[in-house]
């Protein structure tokens, strides 16, 4: 029966999933805002991050907090490679080459992972204390869920402050609005773009840990759907809007879980279909997303 506590439990699961989508959507929307790049490879960094911390903790017994720091650094370094190898030479060549490059890099990384890790799935576990549960009346919430929700809020707030209060953050907003004018003002846009990739990719890698910890298993191909869903969250929220990507992430996560949790069991396989239907409905009613600005014609 659908009790209130069951519903609350599902809602928590939805918020957790939404938190992860929000984090990924944030990284995607920032890169999109500056480069107009739909970053298909974003999900691959989630997968690589998950494997990275899996090997650090499960195999080499690196203490957990240290492993988490290493994971963020690993993510940042991947961002540096991703930008310099993939996009540095494509500046000013239009949006299509960027899109195709990111798709190509996704396919490359997924196949590389398949080769190195084999197609099997790996049992992933975070340290035990992450699975202790805090009870709140009739519902209980695992520490990992608290961790994921809190991290996503902290990261999004920190990033918003970065955009408002720091010199590089303000330059990032200026670059997103008018890249050419930003160059004329002496902003080194290569640095700004690199910073955006580093931040986005580091967040993606950290999300890899949250993903693995929540679903207890990782595989070479988990990145694809994650990336696509994060992009859906970005579009629902409004391309280029930080607050929108957060909102889009939560809506998507909650809608997805409630679909699975509240509809009869036979409907669960349709969760992705339902997600995309939601996308279509929102875009039909609000073409620039919930919080998006209309794309200005660039002259």
């Amino acid at each position, binding site marked *: 029966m659908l009790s209130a506590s069951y519903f609350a439990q599902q809602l928590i699961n939805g918020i957790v999933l939404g938190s992860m989508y929000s984090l990924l959507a944030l990284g995607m929307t920032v890169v999109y805002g500056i480069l107009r790049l739909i970053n298909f490879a974003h999900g691959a960094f989630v997968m690589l991050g998950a494997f990275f911390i899996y090997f650090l903790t499960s195999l080499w017994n690196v203490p957990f907090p240290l492993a988490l720091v290493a994971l963020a650094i690993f993510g940042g370094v991947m961002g540096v490679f991703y930008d310099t190898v993939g996009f540095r030479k494509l500046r000013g060549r239009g949006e299509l080459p960027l899109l195709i490059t990111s798709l190509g890099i996704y396919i490359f990384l997924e196949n590389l992972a398949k080769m190195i890790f084999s197609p099997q799935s790996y049992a992933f576990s975070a340290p035990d204390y992450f699975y202790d549960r805090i009870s709140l009346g009739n519902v209980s919430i695992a520490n990992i869920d608290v961790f994921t929700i809190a991290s996503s809020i902290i990261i999004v707030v920190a990033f918003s402050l970065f955009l408002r209060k720091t*010199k590089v953050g*303000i*330059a990032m*907003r*200026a670059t997103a*609005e*008018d890249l*050419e*004018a*930003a*160059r*004329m*003002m*002496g*902003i*080194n846009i290569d640095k700004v773009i690199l910073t955006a990739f580093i931040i986005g990719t580091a967040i993606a890698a950290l999300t890899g840990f949250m993903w693995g910890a929540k679903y207890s298993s990782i595989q070479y191909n988990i990145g694809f759907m994650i990336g696509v869903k994060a992009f859906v969250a970005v579009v629902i929220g409004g391309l280029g809007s930080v607050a929108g990507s957060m909102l889009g992430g939560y809506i998507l996560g909650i809608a997805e879980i409630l679909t699975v949790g509240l509809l009869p069991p036979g409907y669960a396989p349709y969760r992705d279909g339902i997600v995309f239907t939601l996308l279509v409905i929102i875009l039909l009613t609000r073409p620039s997303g919930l919080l998006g600005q209309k794309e200005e014609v660039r*002259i």
Partner: protein
Amino acid sequence: MLKLDKVDVYYGAIQALRGVSIKVDEGKVVSLIGANGAGKTTTLKTVIGLLKPKKGKVIYKGENIAHLSSHKRVKMGISIVPEGRRIFSRLTVLENLMIGAYTREDKGIKDDLNFVMDLFPILRERENQLAGTLSGGEQQMLAIARALMGRPELLLMDEPSLGLAPNIVIEVYKTIKEINKRGVTILLVEQNVNMAQRVSSYMYVLENGIVNISGTPQNVVSLDEIKKAYLGG
């Protein structure tokens, strides 16, 4: 201060500048006039580093900067007031001004902020407002103030009178004189020849990417072809 030496610039296969040579001496206001599509903006973009010449030199303070990136040039003391202002409308007035000082690391930024806000008191009043909410004239003031925040030695101005009411145009030109008096060298691009001639000590006329005519404002505006093309008779 600035010298372009036989500069060729292309957009893909289309040549926009053909052997353009101009000279801007320190402390002067030099203007570059010409019809729509003549290549004026292209010239300024070549000076600020958005476009790289295929041939020729861009010499600034004795150094060929033709292949330096924009941010290095801005750091060397070149600032621009772009065509159409190009202020960042989703940033506040204050943030726009700070972007103007982006390449600077010296301690004088606060003083310069006070200076430009004294020059344009409206910017102080609107400091925390989004720049997109300013009127056209105010946006032009902001674009000029933003360029001054770079503490330029050479200021490039691309049609600063474009789309402004006549009384605002006069205001803008007063400011140009004032800035120049403080020792800033100015390369001014205009279609408004009438205003440009009043502040310039030398003028170049650009036609289809070629400089054919140059001289003092008196000499240039007395030419029949200039009168016909730019001064309505």
